[in-house]
């Protein structure tokens, strides 16, 4: 521990602490500009200078990088320190008058106006080098640096061209205290829509809202540490030492009596329908993006805004995007009608926009759904019956200029209409989840024609698969809404519990048996059995089938040259009789 005096106050700090840390502990405020706690001190702005009496010398030292030492007498606001600090701030103010943190410090120090000539009143860069150091120390990319010297010094990429070393992490902009660095949006989508994108936003996040457990994780794909080996800022700032970059993925094997598959769905990718312009035109968003937009904790705080930050005057909701369409999915996704109606209602609540709802058929089959539809009819939503053919920005009239034009055949009017809106919401349908096929292979589950998992029987066994002990729940089995999913999941759980409750497994009665009197011990069957249920008893000179392992496929029976193997209920004689029987009639 080190004892020193800060403004006459005794403080004790850890060995290796800086004067700045000691001053903070003593409650003395020392302004800083080029300092950031997770980046090595740079001591360039010289705003944090304090007067230090130590070993008979009286010096002005930068507190951000000078180590506190036993017996130092520090005065953070001595006349000499203040004069130097003011002058440095005043000079910086002439360079970067638009830098907000600098102006605040200037105000604090009582500087109203700089006496030095101001070159650019909009300049924000104070040359603190945080961006350069973040890129080097945090990111490890070294994509930017200072170039030129003296007053010409500025931050730049090599030769001022696009830097190949830049990994686009935006750490420079993040660490810039004055907002002098902005990130260029290269994808034509504006900031709020960028945030609506549901993909990875930060490397550390909770997987989804309302995730269980509610614990953040590090996304290796997005984490800078796993790209460059540097950074680890999260570990530096975590007081609980909870961040561990060395953790590896582990594969856990769990023995289970039964499995419930509830692998869910993904939404239809609206880019697959080019005519709807998603990803090409701004202000065309999918239902999920709209959900984020209206969410009170979303990017706009729940306000429905266009890319330019204005409120839309007309909004179109397009039903059946990807559903009920032979080109994409023939099935009805079952939920889109109802959530579209909800959107229309929310839009009416939050905006003054005219709301158009383009539907093919209104499918309001659930409890209270039809009533909700009627409520919206009364609320004034304009329902247009017909499939939208395209969304375009090609204006034919002056009124359409700058709008999205929805072309649709109104089947009630029997006419093709062009409806200009500011925002279009695509009610995308459901598709099996990304790893659906892999799951089907793993669990040997058949799929129905719509590619969702096939249940054992649509009426009698709607939650079972063809394999014993494997049950289906939710949208992996077919599109359904939340109440249906909850009901099916409950049923699947009950089925699984029933198996567990029984405490024993009932064997199929169709297993194969080897008649040891006939068996010659050729062992052809042993190699054929996919379940390794057959063992050859060397001592006894014949093979034997384990009833518990045998699934009753009968492959061994068909292959047995001596007719020693037979399958219960599918004996050769029985099948011969069946064949004969057929020809009796």
């Amino acid at each position: 521990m080190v004892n020193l005096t800060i403004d006459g106050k005794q403080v004790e700090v850890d060995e290796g602490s800086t004067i700045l840390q000691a001053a903070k502990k003593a409650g003395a405020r020392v302004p800083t500009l080029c300092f950031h706690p997770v980046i090595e001190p740079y001591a360039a702005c010289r705003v944090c200078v304090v007067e230090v009496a130590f070993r008979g010398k009286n010096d002005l030292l930068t507190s951000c990088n000078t180590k506190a030492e036993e017996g130092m007498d520090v005065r953070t606001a001595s006349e000499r320190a203040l004069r130097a600090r003011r002058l440095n701030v005043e000079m910086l103010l002439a360079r970067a008058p638009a830098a907000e943190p600098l102006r605040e410090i200037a105000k604090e120090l009582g500087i109203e106006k700089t006496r030095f000539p101001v070159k650019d009143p909009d300049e924000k860069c104070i040359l603190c080098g945080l961006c350069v150091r973040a890129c080097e120390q945090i990111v490890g990319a070294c994509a930017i640096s200072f170039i030129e010297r003296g007053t010409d010094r500025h931050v730049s990429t090599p030769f001022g061209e696009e830097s190949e070393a830049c990994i686009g992490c935006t750490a420079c902009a993040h660490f810039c205290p004055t907002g002098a660095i902005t990130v260029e949006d290269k994808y034509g989508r504006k900031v709020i829509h960028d945030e609506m994108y549901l993909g990875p936003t930060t490397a550390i996040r909770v997987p989804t809202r309302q995730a269980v457990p509610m614990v953040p994780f590090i996304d290796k794909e997005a984490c800078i540490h796993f790209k460059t080996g540097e950074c680890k800022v999260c570990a530096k700032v975590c007081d609980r030492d909870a961040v561990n970059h060395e953790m590896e993925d582990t594969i856990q094997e769990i023995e289970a009596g039964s499995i419930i598959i509830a692998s869910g769905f993904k939404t239809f990718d609206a880019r697959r329908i080019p005519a709807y312009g998603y990803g090409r035109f701004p202000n065309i968003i999918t239902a999920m993006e709209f959900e984020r937009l209206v969410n009170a904790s979303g990017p706009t705080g729940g306000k429905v805004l266009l890319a330019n930050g204005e409120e839309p005057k007309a909004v179109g909701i397009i039903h059946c995007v990807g559903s009920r369409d032979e080109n994409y999915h023939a099935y009805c996704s079952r939920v889109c009608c109802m959530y579209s109606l909800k959107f229309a209602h929310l839009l009416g609540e939050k905006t003054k926009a005219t709301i158009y709802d383009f539907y093919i058929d209104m499918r309001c089959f659930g409890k209270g759904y039809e009533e909700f539809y009627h409520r919206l009819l009364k609320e004034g939503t304009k329902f247009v019956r017909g499939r939208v053919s395209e969304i375009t920005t090609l204006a034919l009239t002056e009124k359409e200029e700058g709008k999205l034009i929805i072309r649709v055949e109104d089947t009630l009017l029997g006419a093709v209409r062009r409806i200009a809106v500011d925002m279009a919401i695509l009610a995308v349908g459901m598709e099996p989840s990304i790893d659906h096929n892999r799951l089907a292979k793993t669990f040997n589950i058949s799929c129905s024609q719509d590619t969702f998992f096939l249940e054992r029987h649509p009426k009698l066994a709607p939650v079972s698969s063809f394999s014993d002990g494997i049950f289906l729940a939710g949208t992996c089995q077919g599109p359904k809404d939340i109440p249906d999913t909850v009901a099916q999941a409950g049923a699947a759980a009950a089925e699984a519990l029933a198996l567990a409750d029984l405490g024993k497994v009932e064997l199929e009665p169709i297993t194969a048996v080897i008649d040891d009197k006939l068996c010659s011990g050729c062992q052809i069957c042993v190699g054929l059995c996919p379940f390794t249920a057959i063992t050859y008893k060397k001592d006894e000179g014949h093979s034997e089938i384990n009833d518990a392992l045998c699934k009753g496929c009968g492959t061994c029976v068909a292959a047995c040259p001596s007719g020693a193997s037979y399958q219960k209920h599918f004996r050769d004689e029985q099948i011969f009789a069946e064949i004969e029987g057929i020809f009796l009639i």
Partner: protein
Amino acid sequence: MNQEHFEPRLIGFLCNWCSYTGADLAGTARMVYAPNIRIIRVMCTGRVDPQFVLKAFREGADGVLISGCHPGDCHYQEGNYKAMRRHKLLSKVLEQFGIEKERFRLEWVSASEGTKFQQVCNEFTEQIRGLGPLNLNGNKGEHHEQRQA
């Protein structure tokens, strides 16, 4: 023996998990297909002993269909591959006996492919109708015809 009134008799060995369910689906979906096929359910196409096919032909079948899960989809992992191997060999043997190999057919029909089952049955029936009766056991065909009449 009147070619025009010939109604082939076909026997289908269908696996319990895919094709039999597929056939069931065709039924529940009330799809109409040729009534010439008689189905024998086995747990797996791997159970289909070559004897069954021979027996079927001997008893008077004009064609035999074996139908199971698509490759890789077998409920018993690989029974359908075994059936495929046996089908190849048996076809050669049948040719030696003078039975056209077209009369012995292997098809993959999954549980969801009701339409495919319908299509396979119709196609197979028409194909055998084109080939004419096998006549291993002549009366049976006539008997059938008489019954039809």
